[in-house]
């Protein structure tokens, strides 16, 4: 769309791609061939949970139904994430081609993009792009002349709810309900949108699938590590001179990343957004990968001048606001954790109570119904553990007098 000439550099997603390339290629491929390439690639979901994409598509393909859906999760609400914004605006063809391929593989003729309400400004451009695809016969009936290959895409807007990034909450929202997560199982691959088999994929996953279809699973696997193949788009923000979206192979060390984005005097890196973990300087040799520090793409950098308790307070306020209120561990737990942070801020705490709150956080991780409550204590626990000295013992240990 815009900024077309502003070419980004990257090994996989940002590598060269011509509109329709993947769709042309699958005209001669069977569904099994594509699934084979995907399985070879070991592509995992890029939203953060890391479920193998080939398995998800295979389960949806195997489900028996007259109607199936492909949903693109473009509800990136994780604080510090903006890679999908770049993909939606600059790599639109890659995303939509990826959806067509998903439709072909799982046997669906309807795709839905769930676009977060905050990105409404892209809505009209995306509709225009879809119209162009229809005129090129890359969408619609008998795509590129292949008999019975029908697929079309609609775009639906979210309305400002972080929890709708969770796939079952997203489906609830599409069905016209409050965005409250469902019990799983049944999983969306069997019982999804309108009770039909549905595959819900992140924007980046669909883009990667389109590239894999063209270039093959082996090519994809050449990048990254054994367990985390390919590359990851990282949204880098905070205290650095070159914030932005970077595509780096999995297995990149935090120190290497900091060098690339020109960050100085870094004290901490929050990886995975508010629901991720906070890594202190002593652990900067850890790598970004599913087996070490997993992330949906959010990297926030804090330098020496930042107060970690203030950062933590910002995160906990976020979760209190965004918890849907459906299950108790998340609804009440986040409020309690925030109160704990405020106690620390006002030097009005006891260590035994803070330790109890950490236990509460661990309970929330197992007892919450969806990913929001399961991951919201991560930053609470990791910041209080990793920055103990700053939070509790600064001021010569006289903090709390």
């Amino acid at each position: 769309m815009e900024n077309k000439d502003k070419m980004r550099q990257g090994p996989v997603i940002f590598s060269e791609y011509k509109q329709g390339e993947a769709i042309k290629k699958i005209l001669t491929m069977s569904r099994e061939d594509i699934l084979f390439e995907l399985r070879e690639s070991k592509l995992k979901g890029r939203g953060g949970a890391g479920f193998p994409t080939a398995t998800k598509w295979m389960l949806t393909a195997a489900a028996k139904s007259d109607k199936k859906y492909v949903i693109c999760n473009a509800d990136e609400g994780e604080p510090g994430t903006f890679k999908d914004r770049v993909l939606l605006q600059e790599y639109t063809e890659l995303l939509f081609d990826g959806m067509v391929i998903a439709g072909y593989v799982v046997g669906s003729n309807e795709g839905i993009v769930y676009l977060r309400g905050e990105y409404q400004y892209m809505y009209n451009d995306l509709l225009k792009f879809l119209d162009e695809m229809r005129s090129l016969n890359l969408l619609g009936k008998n795509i590129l002349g292949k008999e019975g290959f029908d697929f079309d895409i609609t775009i639906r807007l979210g309305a400002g709810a972080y929890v709708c990034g969770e796939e079952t909450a997203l489906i609830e929202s599409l069905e016209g309900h409050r965005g409250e997560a469902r019990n799983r199982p049944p999983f969306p691959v069997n019982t999804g949108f309108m009770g039909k088999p549905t595959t819900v994929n992140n924007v980046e996953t669909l883009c990667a699938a389109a590239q894999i279809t063209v270039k093959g699973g082996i090519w994809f696997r050449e990048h990254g590590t054994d367990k985390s193949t390919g590359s990851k788009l990282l949204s880098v923000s905070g205290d650095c001179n070159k914030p932005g979206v970077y595509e780096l192979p999995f297995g990149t060390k935090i120190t290497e990343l900091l060098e690339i984005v020109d960050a100085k005097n870094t004290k901490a890196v929050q990886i995975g957004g508010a629901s991720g973990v906070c890594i202190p300087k002593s652990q900067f040799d850890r790598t970004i990968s599913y087996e070490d520090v997993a992330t949906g793409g959010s990297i926030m950098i804090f330098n020496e001048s930042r107060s970690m308790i203030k950062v933590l307070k910002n995160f906990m306020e976020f979760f209190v606001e965004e918890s849907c209120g459906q299950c108790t561990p998340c609804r009440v737990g986040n409020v309690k954790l925030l109160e704990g942070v405020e106690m620390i801020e006002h030097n009005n705490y006891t260590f035994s109570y803070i330790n109890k709150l950490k236990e509460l956080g661990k309970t929330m991780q197992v007892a919450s119904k969806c990913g929001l409550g399961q991951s919201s204590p991560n930053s609470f626990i990791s910041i209080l553990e990793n920055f103990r000295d700053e939070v509790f013992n600064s001021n010569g240990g006289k903090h709390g007098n």
Partner: protein
Amino acid sequence: MLVLEKNSLTEEIEKLVEKHGNNRSSLLSILQEIQQKHSYVSDFAQQEVARLLDIHPVEVFSVISFYAFLNSSPKGRNIVRLCQTITCDMHGKEAVAKAIERELGVKFGETTKDKKFTLEYVNCLGMCDQGPAMLVNDKVYSKLTPEKAVEILNQIK
């Protein structure tokens, strides 16, 4: 509300239901269009939507109350949403917020007396590399300074 106004609103909602389809999954799209045009979804509008979709009005209200971008009481004609997430905060959100509050004479969470602006905080807008950022209605503005933010708001009629 005048009978005439009610009738025209009913007609408008009927058209929306026709456009998006007479089923529950159209609810959000219908409410979003009403919200966009009237800046809120009134009690009467909620009842009409419920009647046409054949669901209970409470269901409609429960959906409106869930989503941050839908509301059941009137707001200003323009909604200003300033990102409060940490990276925007680190890049000077507070100064921008104060400048806007001074200029418009209301605090965040409030609406100006002339109903022109409603100020709200919002969570991550996905502009973290260009913070501080704000949405005015559906337009996004980034790399704000106190001066620039006020200038943007002054240009809105």
